[in-house]
């Protein structure tokens, strides 16, 4: 089943055409990777899919619903979660609170109920905390639960952001360069972890530069260049494809 289907997505910034009519589909239960040289429009596409950026033209269909014009918070409520290439962590909140915020869509109490501290509010906050603590344990973040997130090393902040996105219990998880800035060892652990997500039934769509990671875990790879999809296929097929090699290494190397 197709979870995400984006058609003819176009976006310009001033005169620069960042996306020139891109089609992508993501199948349920797969890990799909989006690759391409710098400036090819990967992050722009992710921003459009998650609703952070409006698109100029096109359609975004998620679970058979057209959500192209929905604001980000409504898309999140449907089960689309994401992480950011340049971390967007809540710096002065603790790691636990960051992850609790991720579970926001599973709570529902209003402003007045919160101020009056009705039993329902206390109950849902306890449930949120319990779930968050479980996620922290799973990601080996428990020792940092009460540390301010902004004070942690980069690699750990990345993990906090992934934990926060998972707290949303997403159907579709968009990971924007999850391995950037990680050590080789950390990247290997990340690869195992992402693979584990698939087994839990979470569909993963990721932007990544680390080719070993992409080729190792992806079921399907989509290649962008200059705002256009130039190829898509299995990792093996992508590795052999001339146009892809050309985009990455230039004309001459591809011929020789």
């Amino acid at each position, binding site marked *: 089943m197709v979870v995400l289907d984006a058609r003819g997505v176009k976006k310009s910034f001033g005169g620069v055409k960042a996306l020139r009519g891109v089609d992508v589909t993501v199948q349920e239960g797969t890990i799909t990777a989006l690759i391409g040289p710098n400036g090819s429009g990967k992050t722009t596409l992710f921003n459009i899919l998650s609703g952070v950026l409006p698109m100029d033209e096109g359609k975004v269909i998620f679970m058979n619903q057209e959500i192209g014009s929905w604001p980000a918070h409504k898309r999140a409520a449907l089960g689309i979660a994401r992480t950011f290439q340049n971390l967007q962590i809540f710096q002065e909140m603790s790691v636990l609170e960051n992850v609790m915020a991720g579970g926001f869509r599973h709570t529902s109490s209003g402003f007045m109920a919160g101020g009056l501290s009705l039993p329902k*509010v206390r109950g849902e*906050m306890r449930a949120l905390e319990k779930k968050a603590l479980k996620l922290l344990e799973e990601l080996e973040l428990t020792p940092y639960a009460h540390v301010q997130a902004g004070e942690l090393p980069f690699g750990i902040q990345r993990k906090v952001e992934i934990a926060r996105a998972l707290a*949303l219990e997403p159907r579709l998880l968009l990971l924007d360069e999850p391995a950037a800035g990680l050590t080789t060892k950390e990247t290997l652990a990340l690869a195992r972890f992402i693979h584990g997500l698939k087994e839990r039934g979470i569909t993963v769509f990721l932007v990544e530069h680390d080719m070993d990671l992409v080729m190792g875990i992806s079921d399907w790879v989509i290649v962008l260049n200059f705002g256009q999809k130039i190829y898509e296929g299995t990792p093996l097929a992508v590795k052999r494809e001339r146009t892809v090699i050309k985009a990455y290494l230039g004309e001459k190397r591809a011929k020789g």
Partner: protein
Amino acid sequence: MKRDYLILLLVTLVAFTLPLILPGDYYVEVFLFMGINILVALGLSLLMGYAGQISLGHAGFYGMGAYISGALTAHLGWPVPLAALVALVATALVAALVGWPTLRLRGHYLAMATLGLGIILYILFVQLKGITGGASGLSGIQPVHAGDLYLDTPRRYCYLVWSLVILAFLFSLNLVKSRSGLALRALHYSEVAASTLGIDVAKYKLQVFVFSCVLAALGGVLYAHYITFISPETFGFMYSIKLVVMIVLGGMYSLWGALLGGAFLSLLPEFLHRLEDLEVMVHGLILLMVLIFLPGGLTGLIQKIGEKIRGSS
């Protein structure tokens, strides 16, 4: 979190004892006005510290509370509770009307909009002579009473004011640790990330802004029905600035900042009697010094001292 409720208990004890032991009505009255200032500052602190937005027109909302409730009792003889309720609802509506378009935009549009609104409201207080009494003021505002018990002495009224201050703190502390508080803090650090977690950023900012304005109006209601005579200069731009200075001085990232900053700036004029014209300069100086030397405000300072003591023992 538990610590905050302990502090509130302590504040309650102090607030309920002080009117009994202060050596005279004058001091009780100072304490009463301090309570009103703190109530208004508390709302602004939620707005500034949690939603990351500034209002430069809170004096206007404070004035709306005072004038609407005051005029309804003075001209139409409405009972105070009903007049107060109408004043709070009307202020909430005006706040929502101003906040709705401005809070959808990122950046400090709310500051500009409230600055303008504060000035417009001040002009209305002066010009709507039939209702507000114009520059010479509105008199004949009814005092608060419950049956035959008139809350017209400083001591009695002080209990009313501080009871409401404590209830407002209780509500706000609950709010901060609830789901809404989590959302407000999250959007303060990253609106983009908050929105991708399902948080309707504009809605939360609007709610906290309206709540903040209602607290300001409540302060105005309390002021009007105690003093029973109000004139526009109380509700001018300088009071809006004074409120911002209270929050910055007290510390933006803790609700207790409103308490400390509000208390400090309420007492300051008592020591600066002879320097009345210099009050504006003193406020400016405080703002400057705090921002340079004490960015966390007084609550930040206390926290740092606490950490040092714990660290050295």
